[in-house]
């Protein structure tokens, strides 16, 4: 009965079926993410009227966890990035004998690109994964169900505070990362090129426009929403116990970082046209 042709048809069918399923799954996830964002914003705006306000205390607790506790690592890494940019910039420009122009590169690339990117990636690794793991564990322990049956919207109680805290804290962290990166780069530049830190600072202030700063900060806000949604999405679809939590946490970090990098490119392309 089985002819060689049948196998090929079966294999093609199977591949098509898998591609189809994956596509439907991806579209469904996008839809879920969009409705989740809508619901989270709905509770933020309408919660008080519906008798379920979003608690400030919950937002502050999340903000401390996501923002304040990340300051040391953000400081360390953005300082490192600043120095790295200075080293590479001076090395590259020396070939043209133009190393004094290094400040342009450092100022624009760190404010527009590196600070939001490194902050986004760090927050994805620290807080996005934590969010996914927390929600995943709550789901398998039936804590989410218990909120629902108590008449407490899990989105309002768990997602909205995290979303608000992220959207406020990630741009603030990015602003801090800007300052630290520029300062650290300045220290290196002034030592290497023997110009004063004051002259460097002066040049940076002259070079940077509000537009550059806003470019970086708006990206940071978008990254914040992406990291939250990816974390919540993966956390809330955990099945299969502790192993499932681990798998979805990993997935959330990989997806969040990928989303950040792709969005970064699209945003830069759209805004600089």
């Amino acid at each position, binding site marked *: 009965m089985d002819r060689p042709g049948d196998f090929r048809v079966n294999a093609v069918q199977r591949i098509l079926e898998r591609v189809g399923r994956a596509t439907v799954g991806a579209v469904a996830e996008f839809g879920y993410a969009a409705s989740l964002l809508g619901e989270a914003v709905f509770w933020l705006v309408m919660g008080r009227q*519906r*008798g*379920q306000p979003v608690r400030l205390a919950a937002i502050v607790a999340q903000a401390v966890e996501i923002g304040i506790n990340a300051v040391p690592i953000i400081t360390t890494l953005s300082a490192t990035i600043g120095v790295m940019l200075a080293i590479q910039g001076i090395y590259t420009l020396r070939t043209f004998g133009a190393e004094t122009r290094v400040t342009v590169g450092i100022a624009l690339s760190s404010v527009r690109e590196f600070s939001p990117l490194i902050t986004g990636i760090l927050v994805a690794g620290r807080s996005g994964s934590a969010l996914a793991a*927390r929600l995943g*564990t*709550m789901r398998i*322990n*039936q*804590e989410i*169900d*218990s*909120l*629902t*049956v*108590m*008449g*407490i919207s899990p989105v309002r109680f768990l997602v909205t505070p995290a979303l608000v805290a992220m959207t406020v804290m990630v741009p603030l962290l990015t602003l801090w990362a800007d300052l630290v990166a520029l300062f650290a780069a300045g220290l290196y530049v002034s030592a290497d090129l023997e110009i004063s830190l004051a002259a460097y600072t002066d040049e940076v202030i002259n070079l940077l426009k509000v537009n550059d700063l806003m470019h970086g900060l708006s990206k940071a806000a978008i990254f914040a929403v992406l990291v939250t949604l990816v974390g919540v999405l993966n956390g809330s679809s955990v099945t299969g116990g502790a192993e499932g939590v681990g798998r979805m946490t990993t997935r959330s970090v990989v997806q969040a970082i990928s989303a950040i990098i792709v969005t970064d490119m699209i945003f830069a392309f759209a805004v600089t046209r």
Partner: protein
Amino acid sequence: MSRAAIQIERLNTHYGDRQVLKDVSLEVQPGEILAVMGGSGSGKSTLLNHLLGLLRPSSGRVRILGTDVHSAGFAELQRLRTKIGVAFQGGALMSSLSVGENIALPLREHTDLDETTIGIVTRMKLEVVSLSGFEHLMPAELSGGMIKRAAFARAIAMDPRVLFCDEPSAGLDPVVAASIDNLILRLRDAMGMSIVVVTHDLESTFKIADRICVLDQGEVLALDSVEAIRQSPNVRIQNLLNRRTEDAEIDPDAYLRRLMGPNR
């Protein structure tokens, strides 16, 4: 309109293609304790999840205190949910909140009581489940029996009219299990709650239940008083009551087919 606290009419549910509940109908009267029994995979947990409105049925209706759980609007469902309490199998206490905060959670979210009153109510509920003095501990610091009792305290925090208990005595030693049985009886007697207990613990069922509903492969096999269930001539019920295993299948061909896997 019927005065039953819970009415289930012809409930059919599916997981994918597999039918889990088949035409389940039953009623629970005010102040009644109904035990839902059945082996693993009989559909007990699925039934409970539908009663709680966590899953949508393929067809059929569930009414609790006159509200249709699956077609009610947001506000109506919200009002209903303040009148029902649920003690989940694993407790399902918020692990980030202390025991006291867990019990205070529904009060904080649904009432305008001030903190002093909430504190008093919380300690009263802990008193009821003999956990007074434990309100500052985190759920992770409690034993299994204490978690179950704390979950009861949270379930009754809002003085519900209907209480659902999922496997209240599973995994507990006999003494703690008996104390939970007594607690369920006390709650019914003191507050006139309607209580649905999903369990496979025979001893506790016979002690607390007014009526027993035996589920078997998604169907209501029997729904009757404790005494009638005990006397039932049905073999499957007797197997369940006497902890006998089902007769082994004497069909070597079917057995071999299963061993060979589905692709042959």
